Each structure stands twice: as C-alpha cells, then as structure tokens.
C-alpha cells in the first residue's frame, strides 16, 4: 500500500482496491484463536480434570468439542475473508462473507500501532498489526497474518493520512541501526534484576497452581519416603528447618517465575525516540513493537518499589488513551521500560512528558492532610482485626500470630501517609503514593478528561476528601486534602479551555507543544494567577 497525500483529492471508495491478508494468515491465527475459544471453557474444563472419573460423561465432552470446533472454524473463516483498504483518511476493515462487518477507523483517531510477532507467525514470516483508538478495552483494528511489508505499508499509509511524511516505524523484520536515539536498552542482567524484584498476584497464582500439582506428586512419591524415615525427620528442630526450607523454596519459585516472565516479555527490549514517536520493541517468543506518538502520551508513572530503589533502579510506565486490560498497572500500561537506573529516571521522564519546572526529587510536593493518617490507622486496625479474629478462632494457638499484623499495618500506614505527596504546577500534576511500592504519576493538565471530588463517611467526619483525576485511559487519585480544597481543585486543576485550544493553523492533535509545554501566550492558568493550591 503506497503512501497517500492528504492534499490530493481522495479517490472514490469504489476505486480503491481491497487488500487481503497473507494466504498463510489462517495458519498463523490458528493458535491464538484456539486460545481464545478454549479460555472461557477452562473454568469448566479444569474442575473436570481434577475430579477425574467423576467428571462429565463422554457425550457432553463431544458437545463441548463440537462447539469449540465450530467456533474455531467460524473465526478462521473470518480471518480468511478479511479485507482492508485505506480510503482517504480512513482505514476500512471488512470481514465475513454472508454477514459482512465493516469497520471504519479514522487515522486521526489512532492512538498507537502495535506490531506483534508471535512464535508461529515468526515461523511463517508474518506479523500481527493492532491499531488502537481511545474507544475501548481492546484494539479497534486487529489484523492477524500480514507480511511485514504490508504491515509497514499500512502504518505508513495511516501516518501519511495524518499529513506526515516520515515513516512511523521500521518493519518488524528490519535489522541494523535503529532509526532514532536509543533511550533504553535491556541486557539479560537487567531483566534478571527486574524479574527478581517484581511482585504480582498473577505470578502468585501460577506458583500456587504449580504447588497444587506438586502436592499430588508429593503424596505419591515423597511421602512414602518420608514416612520410612519419620523418626529422623521428627527430631527436635527439623520441623522449623522444614518450614524455613519450604518458605525459601516458595520464594525461589516465585522469583524464578518472575524472571522467566520478564525475559519472555522484555528480551532484547529497546526504546527509541524517532523525534515524532517513541518506539519500543522486545520479547523472546512473541516479539512486540509498540509505537506511541509523542503527543498522545497521557501520563507517565515511575514504579519504584523499595527493593528496586535499594538496587538503584525503577520502571517507567507510559499510558496512552488506548485502553488495555490487565490486573497489574504494568500490564495496563501501553509501554513499559522495565529497568531504568535511578540516575536516568529524571531524564527519561522529561523526554516522555516535558515541561516539569524542576527535577522530580526537587519538587516541593505537598503532604497529605494530617487527618488522613488517622483514617489510614483506622483502616489498618479494622483490616488487621478482620483477619486476626478468624485466624485466632480457627487456627488456635498459631492463629494468635496474625495479631502481629496490627503493629505492622500501623507502621505501614504511617510510612505510606508520610511519604505521599502531590503538586499542581502551571502545566502538570505530580502525585506520589506509597512508601513500600512508591509510584509517582506525572500528567499534563491539558489532558484531563474529568475531575471528581469524593468524600466517604469516615472522611466526612474529619472534614477531608480526595480528588480523582481522569485522563484518557487512566485515572489518578490525589492524596487526601481538606474537603473545601478538594472542591476548589475541581475548578483549578483542568487547564482553562482557552489555554487548551490549538492556535490558528495548528492541527488539533498538535495543540500540545512538544517542548516546554506551557499555556498559550497571553493566557494564564488559575495556578499561574495565584490560586490557593499553587506552591
């Protein structure tokens, strides 16, 4: 697909030929589709696996498999009949033969493009292209089974439909020197550090599942051996030793899973600044290449848990309006730079979201309201008591240990309260939350979609409240402030409309300048005019 100039008169839709996916596309899509169909059924199939002979009768399995086969066939048929073309500034995707579905995506609405190369696609020499807008939880356009050349041509066509001539990104299969300045590059050592310091419920779930399977092997193989040597194992002190060893083994298993996941996701990761875009590529089995337009960045989050701070690095998450699903914030972020040395965090944040008046560490962040500490302590006590009482009743006498949570929670509440802060500058909002898992969010005030002041019953008793700021695809909660101030911030935080409007002759999406990001000349934000929240 060749580049189209927006200045030329757009061709009539009938004149624009359709393009189809590669003939190998159904083969490349087979495994993802199998996963897509099987995943909803896993919840029903897994329990059957564990109950073994008491499971479903054979004919029910037959029906399940038949439904799966029909679903897979229908989806593969959809891939085989998919056509696409660029008509003027719109990408049109059509699929289905008897029941046709047409989707139109305006190039101006595209937030990001993402090129994926899963393992099977890599074997077949194909890629997947995702075209994301701000409209939903998944990519608006998902083309599986394109050749790298066709994917590149389509991205370039989308790019030039927006009135730019420079290519948006290099083809996935391209090798050699990167087109732009390399901002971050990961080595194996970096990924080992990242994986070893990662936390996540997903990882815990995988480990617990693994332990569940191992327990069965334990009962069949290890338990008879232990019973034969029971006297030696039951010597005083061996119980504690076993418990410590089991704990260490569990931690090692979690770390190992984290490291493997980090390597799978970020192997060969490289972040490049092309001038107009940030391009990140990486991944061992599935290679993922994300292109984020500079002016589409909504907010940047610095994730610095205590362990990573101690080891001298943090992670950077970049959010755009392309909404992604996921349990962890890092999964929801559009672009994640896993390891950034602490000394370079500042530079990277300035590059991604320019215009902060001072270095992040030097910003005079405002503390949370003093009464927020009381609220945090009450929450810590309630949470501890709710866990400790059932533990004491049902696990007596060892359940008494659960009461140790109370002082720990109280200390944790103080640390979290003491080290949080927020600041509204002329152009940005900076929010820092958490001590153990410190997360610093930086967002541009011109990106704000809505602001909400919320006051719960407990907060009402103390005369405090909190403010939620929504940008496209993400939300940030400021630390507690006095309720009156929260109400004031509703008006003060979003940049006034005249300051957000693009100047004459400037395209809407270029309204936010790339460097120095300040309100338009002659305008003054409430912060600049000395409103009460400004520091």
């Amino acid at each position, binding site marked *: 697909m060749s580049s189209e100039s927006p200045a030329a008169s757009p061709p009539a839709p009938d004149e624009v030929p359709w393009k189809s996916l590669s003939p190998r596309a159904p083969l490349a899509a087979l495994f993802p589709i199998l996963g897509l169909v099987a995943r909803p059924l896993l919840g029903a199939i897994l329990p059957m696996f564990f109950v073994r002979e008491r499971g479903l009768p054979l004919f029910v399995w037959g029906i399940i498999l038949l439904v799966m086969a029909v679903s897979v066939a229908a989806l593969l048929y959809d891939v085989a009949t998919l056509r696409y073309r660029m008509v003027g500034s719109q990408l049109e995707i059509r699929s289905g033969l008897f029941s046709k579905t047409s989707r139109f995506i305006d190039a101006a609405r595209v937030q990001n493009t993402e090129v994926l190369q899963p393992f099977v696609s890599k074997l077949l020499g194909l890629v997947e292209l995702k075209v994301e807008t701000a409209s939903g939880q998944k990519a608006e356009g998902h083309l599986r089974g394109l050749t790298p050349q066709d994917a590149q041509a389509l991205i370039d066509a989308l790019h030039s439909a927006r009135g730019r001539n420079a290519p948006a990104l290099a083809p996935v299969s391209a090798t050699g020197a990167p087109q732009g300045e390399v901002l971050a590059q990961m080595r194996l050592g970096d990924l080992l550090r990242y994986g070893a310091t990662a936390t996540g419920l997903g990882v815990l779930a995988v480990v617990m599942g693994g332990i569940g399977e191992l327990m069965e092997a334990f009962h069949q193989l290890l338990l008879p051996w232990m019973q034969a040597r029971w006297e030696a194992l039951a010597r005083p002190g061996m119980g504690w030793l076993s418990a410590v060893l089991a704990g260490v083994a569990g931690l090692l298993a979690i770390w190992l899973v984290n490291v493997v996941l980090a390597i799978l996701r970020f192997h060969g990761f490289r972040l490049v600044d092309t001038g107009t875009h940030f391009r990140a590529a990486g991944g061992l089995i599935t290679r993922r290449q994300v292109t984020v337009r500079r002016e589409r960045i909504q907010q940047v989050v610095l994730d610095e848990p205590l362990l990573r701070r101690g080891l001298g690095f943090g992670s950077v998450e970049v959010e755009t309006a392309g909404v992604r699903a996921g349990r962890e914030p890092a999964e929801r972020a559009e672009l994640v730079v896993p390891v950034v040395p602490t000394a370079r965090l500042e530079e990277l944040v300035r590059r991604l979201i320019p215009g902060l008046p001072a270095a992040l560490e030097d910003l005079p962040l405002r503390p949370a309201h003093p009464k927020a500490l009381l609220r945090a302590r009450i929450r810590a006590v309630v949470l501890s008591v709710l866990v400790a009482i059932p533990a004491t009743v049902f696990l007596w006498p060892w359940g008494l240990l659960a009461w140790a949570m109370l002082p720990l929670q109280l200390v944790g509440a103080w640390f979290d309260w003491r080290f949080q802060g927020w600041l509204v500058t002329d152009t940005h909002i900076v929010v820092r939350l958490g001590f153990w898992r410190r997360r610093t969010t930086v967002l541009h005030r011109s990106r704000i979609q809505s*602001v*909400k*002041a919320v006051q719960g019953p407990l907060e009402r008793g103390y005369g405090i409240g909190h403010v939620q700021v929504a940008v496209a695809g993400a939300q940030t909660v400021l630390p507690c402030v006095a309720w009156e101030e929260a109400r004031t911030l509703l008006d003060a935080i979003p940049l006034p409309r005249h300051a957000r409007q693009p100047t004459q002759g400037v395209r809407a999406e270029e309204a*936010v300048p790339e460097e120095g990001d300040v309100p338009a000349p002659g305008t003054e934000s*409430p912060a600049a005019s000395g409103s009460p929240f400004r520091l």
Partner: protein
Amino acid sequence: MSDTQPTLERLPPAALTLFRLAGLIRIGVYGLLTLVAGFILSRTDVGAWAWLLPLVAVLLCAFMLIWYPPRAHQRWGWALREHDLLIAHGVLVQQLVSIPAGRIQHVDVHQGPIERALGLARLQVYTASGGGADGEIPGLARETADALREKLVRREAEDVV
C-alpha cells in the same frame, strides 16, 4: 470553586417517586433471591433459622426505602457552567464531578418503562477516559434532559485525547 458554590439545579419531584419505585423493585429482587437461599438453607442443618435471611433482607431494604430516597433526591444536583458540567450526588459517599467543556465525546439519554411513565429520563455523559460514563443524572424531566443534551453536544469539541 471559582464561581463559589454554584447554584445547583435540582431534580423534579417525580424523581423522588422514581427512587422510591426503584427501592420497591429492590425489595422484590433481594427478597426473592434471599427467599430461594433461605429455602435451600432450610433443607440443611440450619433448619428454620434460614428463614431469618429473607426476613432481614426485606427489613433492611424496607428501611432503605424509607431512609434513602429523600436524601438521595436532595443530594442530586447539576450545573451547566461556562467551563464545565458539574454534577453533585451521593448520600453515604458524596461526589462532585466536573466534566470540562469540550471533553465530552457523547451524551446518552435513557428512558426505561418506569421513567417513561413518569416523564423522566437518565442523562449519561461520556468522555475519552474510558470505563463507562463519567457523569450521570437520573430522574431529569425528559424535556430538561433533551435540552441539556443539546447544549452539551453543541459545545465545540476539542478532540485532544
């Protein structure tokens, strides 16, 4: 706030009827669900004590039916200002939502059967933030909802996501 404490438009009296009817329906739904749960539990060792479950649920819902609607009706309010749409609501958790002008992507007006009978409508305001409506005003008079929708969608969109 800049125009300190703006005068909020309040919901019409018919909205209170809507909230009460919604409360009645809630009693019916929760009553039925807990009745089924109570029936199943009564067949176990719990015995006749299980019937306390629907009783408590219905009593709680009845209390909420008396206590909640007037307060909710009193708390709901909205103001269309130069720079934003302001919506206030909440009895236990109070909320003030400000949606800047020009950020509104689309506005929906819903009318269920009860709302239609009462001549009311529910207005939902969406921005690009994702995850559902950013602002919602239930129990507006249909004419008010239409007029408000017209004013909101006619405002110049900035299209800066």
